[in-house]
């Protein structure tokens, strides 16, 4: 998407109070306690070990650290993680 157009869409979303994840394809991250995490609109797994899962998202990456981490489910849009999550980093 063109940078100018992108800015315009962002402004429109902000003004009209539209859901940014749906319009701008931004990730929506939901955590239930520290044991479960759902990442919608992910762009794929970059690294998968039992202590670290690195996920590509629009405009960067996010890294989940923890113990006994596992991918409970993955498809085109959703990624559900389980395990003991100790920290989450987002890299823009």
């Amino acid at each position, binding site marked *: 998407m063109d940078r100018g157009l992108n800015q315009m869409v962002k402004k429109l979303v902000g003004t009209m109070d539209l859901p940014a994840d749906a319009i701008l394809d931004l990730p929506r991250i939901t955590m239930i306690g520290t044991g479960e995490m759902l990442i919608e609109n992910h762009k*794929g*797994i*970059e*690294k*998968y*070990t*039992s202590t670290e899962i690195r996920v590509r998202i629009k405009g960067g990456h996010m890294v989940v650290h923890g113990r006994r981490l*596992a*991918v*409970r*489910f*993955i*498809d*085109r849009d959703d990624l559900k993680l389980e395990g003991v999550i100790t920290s989450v980093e987002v890299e823009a």
Partner: protein
Amino acid sequence: MITRLWAWLVGYVIIKLKGAQLEAAVNRIAGSGYGIWDLERVTANIMIGKIRIKHFKRLRRIMSGMNVRVGIVGRAGLPFAAAKVLKRKGLLLGLVLTAALLYYLTGFIWMIDITGSEQVSLAEITAVLAGEGVRVGVAKADIDLHRLENLLLTQFPELSWAGVSIKGVLMQVRVAERASPNLAEVRYGDVVAAQNGLVTQVVPFRGTPLVAPGSTVKKGDILIAGEYYDQFGRRQQGSAEGIVRARVWYDAFGEAAFSKITEIQTGNYHVNYTLTIGKWTLRLGKPVPFVTHTASAQTWQWRIGGLALPVAVTKHSYAEVDYQTTKISIEQARALALERAWQQLAAQGVERDQVVESQVSEYMITDQDGIRVGLIVELEQDIGEFAPRL
């Protein structure tokens, strides 16, 4: 949860991904719209996950060009379970037979539940149902519910409503009884004469007396009618009640002869035996020499354990008798005849202890053979009995 259930229904396979670019392979599968669940990293170059059968079949095309091998390590879900069962013909046949038997058995009534009856006993209702062939084990197709309802209503006037329904193998019979607590209270009827007599006293409690002292009544005549007029002059129909005493007569007779025949043993006895083998009977000893005699017999049968053998010996004892005629005096004969007359009265319900001498008149007829004694008893008693009008 729903996803997992659906996956089980359509069937899934457990796959093993082996290679160097496992994350890239997973992304490619997921990016193609095929979900993977329970994805686990086993080693640096092995991952295990679950995927639907339909999606697995398309993996080869998707994975082309990648240095990852895909293999199946397990199969699960309904299609595999069904295939397993289908291979076991005996089990399948058993299942089908069981289902067929269950279906067949649900065509019968296995429980009958009767509710709502208080005055009418369960046994009575059950008996009426049984009379129509409705009992535990009867085929549902043979039951006409509407007919049963009507039958219950006609058989039991106490019921105001009857409902018969079938739920599965349970037949529910629900009845409702009329609200009236005592049917006798609201019955309409008269007090009628239980026997012929001459009325001596009438005490009506309810109803209109139709007889007065001095009236002669026949059995069945209305003594007190159920119809009456209440204090406001309104015509009412109720159950008549009251006492109607009347003089009633009972008659009976007894007969007795002037002679009596008695048997006297002469003191002569005779004994012989019979041997019985199966159907055959053999007499042992002389036949009985007396013209008139009494006889008695005693039988022995051999047994081994509890088993009776078809061999028996019977001892027959005969005693010679003479018949003698004894004279009976007129007084004795009269007493006997009188006794018989009283027995006849007792059969009509007259108790001798309650009759005083003044109420009894006696007559006698005699001829050369015997005597006849007649009795006429006059009693005063309540002759009223309730007879309902329909």
